């Protein structure tokens, strides 16, 4: 049961952090990291495992947020039911979009997903009667279980990171299974995967829909946490940021996705002290990581391991 160790460690630390920190600001920042992590974990399945680039995931994030936000504020649907609805709606949309789009490859796929993201963004902006347009809308109710309302940061923190942990557990189960192997084989070579009996087209669409649905959950959480949403949160920049998180963290590893979300999600906080120069530092950090650790941050962890652990284990063989 060695493979459960990292996850258990992760859960322990996630549980313990608030006790150590107590400060709502840190907790609040970590809530956003958790929300991003939900998306990046699921996006890493699409990007790092199945090898399909999506520059439109902010759209699913946004559809989740808007569906949940609108249902609860306009039609006073229970937030949990609204969240479930947003998952279903996003899933259906993702299927309809993914079916034709995933036939494209490389830069064409990137453009198509980017374009779809833009279309959704334009819709949020322009369907003013429904979405309140660019100025957004607020007073979205908070999530609650029975009498327990997730109103302060700490409760929401536990909710989000509990979801992240559950997602991680599910995803770790999946990536170490026949389905995970099938996904990775698509990235390796679609031809060879096909020849091994993997229905690549079907897996691509399934994983795309799955990650869209998880992104919708993240969107719903965002809406109920911030209680205010506007289209700019779900624009192309966000899509690119999400992909960047996955790649910077290390796209062939779900832990990399969390790492990327944690780094790029909190980077603006670190960079506050640089004032206006934050944009330069941000760009420079990204460039340096990509130039010197093209495998992402987890590959650095791999290097460290090779240095310290690898030598030990190899010695007897030599």
């Amino acid at each position, binding site marked *: 049961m060695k493979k459960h160790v990292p996850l258990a460690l992760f859960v322990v630390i996630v549980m313990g952090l608030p006790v150590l920190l107590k400060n709502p600001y840190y907790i609040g920042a970590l809530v956003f990291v958790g929300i991003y992590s939900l998306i990046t974990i699921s996006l890493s399945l699409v990007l790092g495992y199945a090898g399909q680039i999506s520059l439109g995931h902010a759209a699913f994030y946004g559809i989740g947020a808007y569906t949940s936000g609108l249902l609860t504020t306009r039609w006073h649907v229970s937030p949990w039911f609204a969240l479930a609805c947003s998952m279903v709606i996003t899933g259906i949309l993702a299927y309809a979009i993914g079916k034709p789009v995933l036939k494209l490859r490389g830069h064409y796929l990137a453009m198509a997903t980017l374009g779809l993201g833009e279309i959704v963004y334009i819709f949020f902006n322009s369907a003013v009667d429904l979405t309140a347009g660019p100025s957004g809308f607020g007073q979205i109710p908070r999530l609650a279980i029975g009498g327990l309302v997730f109103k302060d940061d700490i409760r929401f923190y536990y909710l989000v990171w509990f979801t992240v942990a559950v997602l991680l557990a599910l995803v770790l189960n999946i990536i170490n299974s026949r389905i995970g192997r099938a996904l990775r*084989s698509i990235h390796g070579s679609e*031809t060879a995967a096909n020849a*091994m009996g993997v229905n690549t087209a079907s897996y691509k669409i399934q994983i795309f829909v799955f990650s869209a649905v998880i992104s919708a959950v993240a969107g719903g959480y965002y809406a109920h946490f911030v209680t205010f949403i506007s289209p700019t949160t779900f624009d192309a920049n966000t899509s690119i940021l999400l992909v960047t998180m996955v790649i910077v963290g290390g796209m062939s590893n779900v832990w990399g996705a969390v790492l990327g979300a944690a780094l790029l999600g909190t980077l603006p906080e670190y960079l506050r002290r640089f004032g206006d120069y934050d944009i330069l530092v941000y760009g420079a950090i990204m460039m340096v990581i990509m130039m010197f650790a093209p495998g992402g941050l987890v590959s650095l962890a791999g290097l460290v391991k090779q240095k310290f652990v690898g030598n030990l284990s190899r010695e007897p063989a030599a």
Partner: protein
Amino acid sequence: MLNVEGLTKEFGGVVAVNDLSFEVREKQIKSIIGPNGAGKTTLFNLLTGLLPPSRGRISFLDTNICGLRPHVIARMGVSRSFQNVEIFDNMSILENVMLGRHCRTSCGAVSIALRRRKAVKEEALIREEALRQIEAVGLDADPHSSPAALPFGKRRLVEFARALATSPRLLLLDEPASGLNMRETEQVAQLIRKIRDSGVTVMLVEHDMSVVMEISDDVLVMDYGTKIAEGKPREVQKNREVIARYLGRSNEYAKNPKP
């Protein structure tokens, strides 16, 4: 078990496979030989559904498999290896071989994600079978390590094990000995025989004639997409046409160059 009739593949005017007909009988080793560009790999791609044929019919176990998608054909029991060894460096050796079991297993995402007993059990079976195949092909590397570091010969064995893990009825091997040294080639030849003896029909494309002549039950010679000769290895070796294609003709001009 495999029946090919009038198979033709054209690529925008170029005929890569031209009206090819042949038969492969159960539990035999059939080799396809011929010079570069003869259309051998194209033939394999047609048989496995990676390319749609322009004309003709391929029937496998009395079912027409023309136009079926590759993963369906793989499920029916046709597996293959690739000329340049297409194994996945983003997975461990064991996982590569376990992927081969994919088409023989069925657990869905939900039961896997929730680690239902069915899924756990199936996974254990997959692992068992994969380890068995790794042993069967005689691969002595740590199955949990990455295949990226393996020498070429062992990579090929990983690919063999993966192909065998699909429990194929028909195994297509594209140049299994290319890039191997003498000793490795010998091992591969023995392995192919062993596979045949275990009841799997084998088709292979190969340039190393030693291997072909040694292990084949039947040889098909192709050039320019058409069949030149077919028969027992010894017959083929004697075939004048085949010898001419291989060793080439004499260049009349070279002996008396014009001024």
